[in-house]
């Protein structure tokens, strides 16, 4: 009786795609090693039985060399070998390297079924593998699949029952490579191909000069595209819906309500010039949905669209190579660029992705830098939305402040913390061109995740703030903090609420700042402070869970200190 199916394979061979195909559970997959940092579980339904399927983080070998690999290997040993089936997923375009793990699994007596994934890409690259011959040589079932399109998955499911432990000899790793060499020679035929444009681009992007030029171009174009697509959605889709459709309906429905009543205050908020103003009314049916759907969501869509594209093409590991030097100065190495980029969407997945970094020291530095200097989409939406009207100068300014802060703080942390930075060692995937439906699906799941998590919190946040205002607790709280906020940072005392509320979610803070009518300088300082000071509570909890309370406390202390210094400095130096 099979109780569990494990998916195991080298990093970036498409385990998560096969997993989605088998279970129907969607997990994020990208074209770089180490996308899967959490263990996903799902069910494979066949006839009337259900089997647990576990998607393990990528590993090169059964003798683990990193924490993620240790997790994969220890999970594999949880159940007796006769109760599990191990699906070993292999990248057909790089058979040789993948077979080390396969031969180890077979030698250890696991019931293995080999899934030769990415068969279409292998074909394109002139790699032909004789599946039957490989099956004979390995003595386990071998199925050729292309998980992205679904080819071969049914056959894979049908043959799961055929997986039995095969007799395999024990070899040392060195002997194993010799054994693998002879297997590959017998089953693989390589067609000679001329360099394609893709390969020329692949090479150019890792050379010092062409690589940097390409990186600058890609980063600039991505940033421009995020803004362009975001603004397009706002101006052409969401704003017209809110102003032309939603607002008249809302005004009609509430026209006979008493303007100063409790419910009116809670749901609609204050009327500005006798009308609803989505940016300033601050009601649960006005400003709350407008922030989420009219200001933040458009940028969530555009950001994750561009990020998903870069991820699936496989550009990010190349960016990691180019930035390795710089990141070494901050006590990190090149691969940290991936958690950092994810952090620009939302700090939470960014900090989770630091699991791919080896040492605790590195993870602490990365998590602290992300929560201080990497603004998430809601915060960036505010920077664009509120500060944008004063000109690009201010927008760029906030990014520059944050960027220099990351550099300075990174250098200090790298000098001050004991330990060392591990070295960069990364496999670089080929460029792949993701099918559009795959891209859209990934975008859909990320956007859905945002809506599910953000909307309820923002609603509650606005409710909470409205209660404070209605019961006149607001004034009391603001006057308490006025000395710091007003004299040090030059902000009106009401903005303290925005900064405190930012702890719940940055988007709620946006709603609080909008009605205050701040000047460009004040908005500039508030944006910077919102980014630098405490991240939202979700990020807080994630740092706690991932790195422990001590690390969180240290990190929080750094945030507070820097907020006070930067806020004061900006207030003194800006005109």
């Amino acid at each position, binding site marked *: 009786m099979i109780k569990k199916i494990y998916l195991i394979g080298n990093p970036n061979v498409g385990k998560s795609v096969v997993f989605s195909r088998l279970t129907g559970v969607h997990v994020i997959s990208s074209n770089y090693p180490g996308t899967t940092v959490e263990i996903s579980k799902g069910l494979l339904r066949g006839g009337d039985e259900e089997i647990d399927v576990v998607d393990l983080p990528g590993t090169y070998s059964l003798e683990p060399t990193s924490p993620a690999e240790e997790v994969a290997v220890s999970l594999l040993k949880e159940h007796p070998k006769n109760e599990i089936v191990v699906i070993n997923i292999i990248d057909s375009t790089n058979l040789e*390297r993948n077979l080390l793990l396969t031969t180890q699994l077979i030698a250890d007596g696991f019931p293995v079924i080999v899934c030769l994934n990415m068969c279409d890409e292998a074909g394109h690259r002139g790699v032909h593998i004789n599946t039957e011959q490989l099956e004979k040589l390995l003595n386990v079932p071998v199925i050729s699949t292309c998980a992205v399109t679904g080819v071969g998955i049914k056959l894979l499911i049908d043959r799961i029952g055929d997986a039995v432990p095969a007799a395999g000899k024990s070899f040392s790793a060195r002997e194993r490579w010799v054994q693998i060499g002879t297997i590959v020679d017998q089953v693989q035929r390589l067609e000679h191909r001329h360099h394609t444009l893709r390969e020329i681009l692949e090479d150019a992007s890792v050379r010092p000069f062409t690589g940097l030029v390409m990186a600058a171009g890609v980063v600039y174009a991505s940033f421009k595209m995020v803004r362009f697509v975001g603004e397009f959605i706002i101006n052409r889709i969401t704003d017209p819906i809110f102003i032309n459709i939603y607002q008249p309906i809302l005004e009609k429905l509430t026209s006979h309500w008493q303007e100063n009543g409790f419910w009116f205050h809670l749901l609609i908020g204050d009327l500005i010039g006798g009308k609803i103003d989505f940016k300033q009314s601050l009601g649960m049916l006005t400003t709350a949905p407008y922030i989420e759907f009219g200001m933040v969501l458009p940028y969530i869509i555009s950001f994750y669209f561009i990020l998903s594209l870069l991820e699936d093409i496989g550009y990010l590991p190349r960016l990691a*190579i180019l930035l390795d*030097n710089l990141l070494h100065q901050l006590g990190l190495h090149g691969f940290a660029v991936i958690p950092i980029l994810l952090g620009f969407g939302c700090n939470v997945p960014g900090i989770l992705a630091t699991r791919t970094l080896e040492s605790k020291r590195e993870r602490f530095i990365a998590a602290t830098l992300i929560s201080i200097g990497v603004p998430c989409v809601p915060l960036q939406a505010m920077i664009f939305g509120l500060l944008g009207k004063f000109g690009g100068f201010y927008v760029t300014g906030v990014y520059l402040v944050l960027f220099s802060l990351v550099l300075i703080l990174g250098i200090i942390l790298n000098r001050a913390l004991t330990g060392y930075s591990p070295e*960069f*060692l990364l496999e670089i995937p080929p460029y792949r061109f993701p099918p559009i439906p795959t891209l859209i699906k990934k975008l859909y799941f990320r956007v859905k995740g945002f809506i599910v998590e953000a909307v309820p919190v923002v609603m509650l946040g606005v409710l909470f703030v409205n209660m404070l205002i209605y019961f006149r607790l607001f004034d009391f709280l603001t006057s308490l903090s006025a000395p710091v906020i007003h004299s040090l940072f030059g902000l009106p005392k009401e903005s303290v609420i925005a900064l405190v509320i930012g702890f719940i979610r940055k988007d709620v803070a946006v709603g609080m700042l909008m009605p205050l009518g701040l000047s460009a300088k004040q908005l500039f300082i508030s944006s910077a402070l919102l980014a630098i000071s405490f991240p939202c509570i979700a990020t807080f909890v994630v740092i706690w869970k991932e790195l422990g309370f001590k690390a969180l406390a240290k990190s929080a202390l750094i945030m507070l200190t820097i907020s006070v210094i930067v806020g004061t400095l900006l207030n003194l130096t800006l005109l």
Partner: protein
Amino acid sequence: MKKMSLVHLKASHKGKVVDILGGVNLQNRLMSMGLYKGREVGKLSHIGLRGPVVIKVGRGILALGHNIAVKIIIEVV
């Protein structure tokens, strides 16, 4: 035959790994990624100022941090 570290091998030249001057841990890690004594590799590029070295091993591409690359001794082919 001339021996040198991967860092000193010129870009687009090939070599055979003759020694890895690292601990067992590094040796194992590299071994599991297909880089071991006797393996032929081709250098693709080297990001200057102590940046990573990018090499081709078999059908795959590996990026090695500078401090790993200096430990890999090759014989020019």
